[in-house]
């Protein structure tokens, strides 16, 4: 390093160093306090030191060891003045290397080791009261529309313009909401139906589930019932099984306004709160069985749409490699590549990873879990631009880096690393030369809410525009400009892992923790529209 520490700070730095290491004595503390009061810039210097510590913690957890692991770098460091080079031999060298390269959890005799990696994690929250689990052609309106299938729903209004949705309350109650409907979630066991139709399934453990409308308050006593509400006609309750209690709205459940409805009965309460018994009409409400049938039928149709797209991709001349991730029973340790003649051919060796369920029932995926899990592929060729797209399900951000697809080694112009950082940033690193930052790192894109859900990732390396663009679920969310570009060449590479080429016997753990069920590589920079279409057609639910 060409820099030299600035003169004049030696004593202050030494005291701050002792403070940093928790070894500042009372007399030194007084001296440091004195220096802060008298030496100009001392407060700033102390702040600089403390921010450096924070930055080092953050950076060293996710740092790329590849730069250090090349033989050249190691040779260079042998010439260092630092005398421990000679001193480190045998066991000590192994230990030092282990401490640096091994996952911290693998070294049981050092319980303190992972405290700092995890220490700066803030507390995260879930203020949801229900989960949106399934939809059929749902169209949402209004500001509170749910983000994703499987997402937690917070208290607030859900306006379903069309279609149907299944909502599971944290209390255990399930409702099927049919659009158009306007449902306001209050808590894990309470909601207001402003308008529309729903069917509720309330098991005994969710008893007490309460629904409000302008005309009534309904308290469930372990049952299945239907409720329909509209402004002109008021509310209708249909009890199919079990029993519910009805009260006048805003009556504080006054006993005088209470009426019990049992199985096979129903009640119409008009806008002036006049009550008339009705005969329940189960056919007016979608049952769980019907909902599941309809959603399966719709899914089959959706899958046919994806199969069409998949056939198009097989013939697409821009495709460098298309891995549909379909298990071949005759040789299930090979990852097949789809070819234009409609056949598949083995193109990758599966190591460790197991076959598992993909985006929908019947679709295969590979599950990467353990440090050894990977698929080895070889992609010869050189390209000016590339687009990579993948359907993945992340199960955890446990490692500093989770690999999607990485060229073997690193310092080779054109080598490509596509990976996810432990903090949810997505990165495409392309090595150009030693002087330029190779990384196109997105802002934080993924978080705990994204674990366990299928998502579509894409990245475009566009050499003409000197840009890298990251996409999540069909939408571009990050673009970086490249100072220098090189033609890309993936060559020998690993899906879900990384081979450093530096150490045959020990490797940093960078396996992907999750599943992958489609990976396509194009030799061109694809348009935003095309990537959005891949997401639309391929997404897990219609």
């Amino acid at each position, binding site marked *: 390093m060409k820099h030299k520490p600035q003169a004049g700070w030696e004593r202050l730095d030494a005291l701050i160093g002792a403070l940093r290491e928790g070894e500042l004595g009372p007399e030194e503390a007084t001296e440091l306090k004195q220096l802060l009061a008298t030496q100009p810039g001392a407060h700033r210097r102390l702040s*600089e030191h403390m921010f450096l510590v924070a930055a080092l913690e953050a950076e060293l957890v996710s740092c790329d060891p590849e730069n250090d692991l090349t033989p050249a770098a190691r040779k260079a460091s042998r010439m260092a003045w630092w005398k421990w080079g000679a001193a480190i031999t045998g066991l000590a060298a192994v230990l030092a290397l282990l401490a640096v390269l091994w996952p911290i959890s693998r070294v049981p005799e050092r319980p303190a080791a992972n405290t700092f990696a995890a220490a700066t994690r803030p507390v995260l929250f879930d203020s949801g009261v229900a989960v949106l689990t399934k939809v059929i052609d749902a169209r949402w309106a209004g500001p509170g529309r749910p983000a994703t299938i499987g997402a937690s729903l917070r208290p607030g209004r859900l306006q379903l313009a069309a279609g149907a949705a299944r909502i599971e309350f944290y209390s255990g109650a399930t409702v099927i909401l049919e659009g158009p409907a306007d449902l306001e979630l209050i808590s894990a066991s309470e909601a207001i139906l402003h308008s529309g139709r729903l069917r509720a399934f309330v098991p005994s453990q969710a008893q007490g589930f309460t629904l409000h409308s302008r005309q009534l308050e309904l308290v469930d006593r372990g049952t299945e019932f239907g409720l329909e509400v509209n402004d002109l006609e008021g509310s209708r309750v249909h009890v199919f099984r079990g029993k519910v209690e009805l009260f006048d709205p805003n009556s504080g459940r006054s006993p005088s306004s209470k009426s019990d409805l049992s199985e096979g009965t129903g009640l119409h309460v008009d806008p002036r709160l006049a009550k008339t018994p009705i005969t329940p009409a189960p056919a007016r409400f979608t049952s769980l069985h019907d909902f599941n049938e309809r959603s399966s039928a719709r899914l089959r149709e959706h899958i046919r749409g994806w199969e069409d797209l998949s056939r198009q991709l097989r013939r697409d001349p821009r495709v460098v490699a298309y891995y549909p991730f379909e298990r071949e029973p005759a040789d299930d340790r090979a990852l097949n590549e789809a070819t234009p003649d409609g056949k598949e051919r083995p193109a990758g060796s599966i190591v460790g990873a197991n076959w598992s369920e993909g985006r929908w029932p019947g679709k295969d995926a590979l599950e990467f879990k353990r440090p050894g899990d990977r698929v080895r592929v070889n992609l010869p060729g050189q390209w000016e631009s590339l687009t990579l797209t993948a359907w993945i399900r992340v199960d955890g951000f446990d490692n500093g880096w989770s690999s999607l697809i990485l060229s073997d080694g690193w310092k080779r112009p054109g080598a490509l690393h596509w990976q996810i950082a432990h903090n949810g940033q997505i990165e495409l690193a392309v090595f150009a030369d030693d002087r330029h930052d190779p990384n196109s790192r997105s802002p934080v894109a993924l978080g705990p809410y994204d674990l366990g859900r299928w998502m579509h990732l894409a990245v475009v390396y566009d050499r003409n525009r000197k840009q890298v663009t990251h996409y999540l679920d069909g939408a571009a969310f990050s673009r970086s400009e490249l100072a220098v570009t090189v033609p890309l060449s993936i060559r020998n590479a690993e899906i879900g892992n990384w081979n450093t080429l530096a150490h045959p016997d020990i490797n940093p753990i960078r396996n992907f923790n999750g599943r992958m069920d489609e990976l396509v590589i194009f030799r061109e920079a694809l348009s935003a529209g095309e990537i959005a279409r891949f997401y639309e057609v391929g997404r897990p639910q219609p």
Partner: protein
Amino acid sequence: MADAENGTNRGAQTPSAPEEVFTRLLLANQTRIYGFILALVHDRAAASDVLQDVSVVLWRKFDRFEPGTDFAAWAMSVARLSIFEWRRRQKKLPLPLDDDQLTRLADEAVALSFDFEDRLGALRRCLQELMERDRNLLRLRYMAGETMTRIAELAAVSRVAIHKRMNRLHALLIECIRQRLTVEESE
């Protein structure tokens, strides 16, 4: 563009739940906020505890955060009070300071944090300029969380030598970051 109405997309155009927005902001800014806390608390373990407490306070006050403004700046203004309170509750502090000094230190830390992302970028490159052995020393300390005594054992040198080297490395990095920021500004 993906259909935002269908409920299954999460592009930038779909409003997310507040806790999801909050989580993203907190994760994206946590190092900067943690650095600010550390500047006033001076102990990594204590700063982590304070960060946990501050996270809860931030979440409770999140409805007062103005979207689109600097989340970390807001978080630091909220954290400042929590940290001052925390310091008052401690029987023993690594570095006792009076309120004036602490306020000055907090102001300096806030000012310094505004180009934190640039500092982080500069640090990334400065780390690459270090010798591998020095980088490993920092890794043992900050990634593996080893004690200085243990690092001295591993390196088979004295504790004094490790302390000296560590102090020098920190000073070098501060200088390197400073120069890189100056160069980038003038470019």
